[in-house]
């Protein structure tokens, strides 16, 4: 896997578009898989498919507002299936959506290596935001599990490399 993080000029930026069905359907499918499959395969909870989809759409569209709104909607929907306060994932994924789309404007994120690094980084940022919200807003202080978080970040990064290739096929041509 080659890691090539290259800067792009404004002229080089390719903004990708998606059909409405893909824009709405993929996040819904991601949330559905996230809540349905761990019934019997509990280990799947280490993956955060809604986060990966948020990152992908934000990076591909390269529009910060679209990215943050996508993150907000996906995160809020994801929150609805937990039992914690609604808004935890919403806020975290809003910020990730914004950061990912802003990053997509500046660097090449089509390369598998850069996708891996980007996803690992965003996963860690996402976890830090969740922890900060927990401490600052909810008032819950939990021990930070660095080892576990790093492993799950790498796992999500690897999944992202595969998943993003599949999602690339759903882009609108022309």
């Amino acid at each position: 896997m080659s890691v090539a993080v290259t800067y792009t000029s404004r002229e080089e930026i390719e903004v990708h578009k998606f059909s409405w069905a893909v824009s709405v359907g993929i996040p819904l499918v991601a949330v559905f898989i996230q809540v349905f499959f761990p019934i019997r395969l509990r280990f799947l909870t280490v993956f955060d498919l809604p986060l990966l989809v948020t990152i992908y759409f934000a990076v591909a569209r390269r529009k910060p507002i679209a990215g943050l709104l996508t993150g907000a909607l996906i995160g809020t929907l994801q929150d609805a299936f937990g039992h914690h306060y609604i808004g935890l994932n919403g806020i975290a994924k809003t910020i990730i959506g914004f950061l990912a789309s802003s990053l997509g404007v500046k660097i090449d994120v089509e390369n598998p290596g850069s996708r891996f690094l980007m996803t690992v980084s965003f996963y860690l940022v996402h976890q830090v935001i969740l922890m900060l919200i927990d401490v600052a807003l909810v008032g819950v202080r939990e021990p930070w599990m660095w080892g576990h978080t790093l492993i799950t970040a790498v796992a999500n990064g690897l999944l992202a490399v595969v998943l993003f290739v599949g999602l690339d096929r759903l882009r609108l041509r022309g």
Partner: protein
Amino acid sequence: MESFFGRYKNPLVLMAVLFVQVVGLATQVKRPSDPKMPKSPGTRLIRVWAVTAFTPVERAFVGTGRFFRNSWHNWIDLHGVRKQNQELQAEIAHMRMEQARLKEDAEQAHRLQTLLGFREKFISETLAAQVIGTSGSELSHVIYIDKGSRDGVRADMAVITPDGIVGKIKDVFPLSAQVLMISDRDSGAGVILEKSRLQGVLKGTNLGEMQVDGVMADTKVEAGEQVIASGGDRIFPKGFPVGTVTSAAPDRDSGTFLTIKVKPAADLSRLEEVLVVTKMADQSPATAGNEGHVRAADILAERLPTVPKSEPPPGTSTQPAGEKKKGGGTGELKKQGANSTSGDTTAQAKPKIKKIEAQPGQTNAEQAAPGESPQQQTPSSRKPKAEEPKAAPKPPATENPPQ
């Protein structure tokens, strides 16, 4: 001004969206989980919408999968049915014998509990439910089941499997319900360590592990000890299996308490079907055939022919002979006593004499049941005390204690 918004459009939109979400987080809309009970615990509106939208799809997936799996299993299972049937018959025979022994032990325990005026909760009604979803998050250990308020599910009901406790109902929707598992960091259950009888609170952790808090560090707890529900939380049935102790070590921070890690009895990572405890009966444990009260002296007279029967003092009434036989089993005991040597009988009976003296209001059945055969015990033994036949009046307290 216009250029300011134009220039900082993206960050401003981000701030606005975050602001809305933070405000939403702080003041979240709630509505009662049961419309008929406005004071019932509230459920967030967004949660109701999201779950209601996804539940039919999840139910369809689970239902379809179950149909195909059942069809396949039904076909496969036919091959081994005969052999399995023979094995099961043998197992039933073995379990019947085991049951007879346990029944006797249980009766003895119930008698002691009755003496202490003990009241406990029994599982009265359960509702089978299929697991149709999870939170999908490591930080939120919840599952969704396909039974909701329309099926009689209410918040705070216990959810179990035959292996052990699973959790409790948190949010209830019309067709589904959310179960907070005991492995979640927000859950808690009163537990007892079976051998040492130490009480503690079972809590979940971020990683979905379970640990018992509140046990002092100077206590000896061994790995492998069973953990059962204490019933103190009034949610989980007392005595129901919770898990097994895997390790116990002093708390790293304070060192005052033990951190006891527990492996759940129910496989929480592979739940397919669960039982919701919809009704718990609050009742006193009853004993078999305690229809009539008799005096301790009369029991001793029947049980121990070698002990001379004490003469009642003037003015005190004695129990008629017919009353004595009501308790059942006394004749059997008499026979046993007659068969054994008189020396042995006296030696065995002496400690019992003191106990009987201390409980003059006890029934003859309560005293006689240890020697009673399991077949003599009636099914009515599990009935609440209030439903039992009226006992004969207590003998006067002036009764002479046996020698």
